[in-house]
């Protein structure tokens, strides 16, 4: 049990659309071990994004349990959820979600604005991180001056700055061409090899093939787990 990072128990999520209730998740049971690389696949409306939002602490389940590092996340207040996102989760989005008016350095350190602690030598720490992602030379550049692949590397650096327990990537190669996608996926693979836990949401089987385990979802339920 000690190596379990997160666990979902009979997790349900209901949305109200007009006058009708819609169950986006209808009883999901699922666990991720520390250091694991999991891909979640499924068609639109299968509930994969909803599940990811709940795992990332962006949303609360209607019922069920969500345990992360032996702590109940489903009971947390809004402020505690914000701290959870800041300390435990590193988000990587399909549309990058970087601040265009900030340069690379300012974007990477953005999560630290909301952290209580900071690395001892911040600039050195950021440069080391960017070095690993091969974009250290771009540290002072504006986001608008970078290519798609470089922008996603900046987003990965930002996700790693707080040493999170979990990297949560939502279609991270969705906006990239195939050769850039390959490079980004190799970065994920390397990060996994370094011991990071990664959950990646995708509809692309090739992208999912980089993961150790693939979870197939449909109609708010897990229908298949393949190792």
């Amino acid at each position, binding site marked *: 049990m000690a190596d379990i990072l997160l666990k979902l128990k009979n997790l349900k999520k209901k949305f109200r659309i007009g006058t009708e209730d819609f169950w986006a998740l209808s009883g999901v049971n699922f666990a991720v071990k520390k250091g694991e690389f999991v891909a979640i696949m499924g068609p639109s409306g299968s509930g994969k994004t909803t599940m990811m939002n709940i795992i990332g602490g962006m949303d609360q389940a209607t019922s069920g349990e969500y345990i992360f590092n032996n702590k109940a996340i489903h009971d947390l207040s809004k402020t505690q959820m914000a701290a959870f996102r800041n300390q435990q989760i590193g*988000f990587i*989005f399909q549309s990058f*979600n970087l*601040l265009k008016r900030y340069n690379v350095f*300012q974007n990477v350190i*953005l999560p630290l*604005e909301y952290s209580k602690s900071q690395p001892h030598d911040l600039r050195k720490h950021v440069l080391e991180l960017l070095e690993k992602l091969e974009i250290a030379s771009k540290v002072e550049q504006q986001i608008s001056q970078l290519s798609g692949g470089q922008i996603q590397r900046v987003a990965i650096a930002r996700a790693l700055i707080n040493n999170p327990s979990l990297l949560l990537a939502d279609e991270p190669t969705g906006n990239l061409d195939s050769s850039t996608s390959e490079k980004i996926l190799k970065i994920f693979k390397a990060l996994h090899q370094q011991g990071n836990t990664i959950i990646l949401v995708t509809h692309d089987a090739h992208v999912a093939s980089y993961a150790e385990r693939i979870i197939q979802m449909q109609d708010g339920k897990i229908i298949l787990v393949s190792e």
Partner: protein
Amino acid sequence: MGNIFKKIKTAIISILANRFRSFLTAFGVSIGIGTIFIMLSISSGIHKTIQNTTNAIASTNLTLELFSTQNPQKYIQHLLENKDFYFIDNIGKSINFIPHKVLLDGVNIKSKINIDNLNSNSIPQINGCDPTFLKLQQFNLIQGEMINDFHNRQKIPVAIVGTYFLNNIWGETNPIGKIIQIENRQFTIIGVAENKYSTSLPMINNFIIIPETIVEEDYSSMFFGRNYSISLTNNAKSEIAAAEILNYFNILKYTNNLEFSAMVINPKEIQKMIAIVDLALLAIILITGGIALFVSGVGIVNTMLANVADRTNEIGIRKALGATEKDLLIQFLLESLAITALGCLMGVLFSMIFINLTNFLLITVFTDFWINNLAGFLLNIDFQVLLLIIFITALTSLICGIYPALKAAKMDPIEALRYV
């Protein structure tokens, strides 16, 4: 502490990213602040001018003016008689007010003096004064000697001049011993009076004082007023005393006599009038300033709402990265505070320039108009008012910034992230 610096830095970066919109809002705020500041400086200037004027004419005593427009010759003979003094002394016994002294204040005449380039507005006020009056008014000299009883009794033609007359009209640097001619009679200057009142009303020091006996002898045809100063004890009711004295002169003494009349100037009444003028000015300023500030406030709300709408995606990103509602509330409040601070700075700067430039032009370019028509009125910068303005501005900014900031803080991160 470090955290707040981070937030201030974030606010500044955000403002710079929307610099045109932020500057326009700040400009709107600066107009509001500038309007209030200039209006308050006008009000403060008016207040000061009125106070200087009334201090100058009223001091703390009642002033009894006896005047006649029809027969100055007859008027000059009409000094207060013993029975009048007796009456005034006795008013106190019946109405619990004790006037302890009635003084001969002096007489004013209109006259020509032999100084070049003297226009009608620059003519000094010429007073004939009793030496006792000068002593009791604590009238001091900066140069020379005082008119004394001997000068007055013997009708020696000596004069004391005020500094405004000396420096601005006559232009004489060493007046003692010099001769000045008033109508057909020559006077030797024996003293220069110190500035009795504020320098913002320099005209008050445009005067010449000569012995009262000479005025009565030589200038009686030019009389236009005779004043008596009546000093009251501290607990005296000046309104009642003034009414009693007025009643005595106008009803009892000068009944059915249209040639003479009496007027009592009561400094307390003047103070009351000043208070009313002050209050009216303040009301006008509060209403106008309030409207200006309200319009600025609407501008702030509008800009900040547009900011929040434009930056919905950023709010989503920040929330995803761990920003709490409080973090975002503070960030957006700081932004509106920073915009308002910029507006406040611009407004104060513009109005300071305007006030100083106006004062400079009044003193140097429109000097005559300023002295003769504005009684030495200057816009006055009150630093306490400035602090109050800064406080009100900060408050406005917080009030106007709170709704957009709350809107940003309460946003759902998932919805906000979808907004591109």
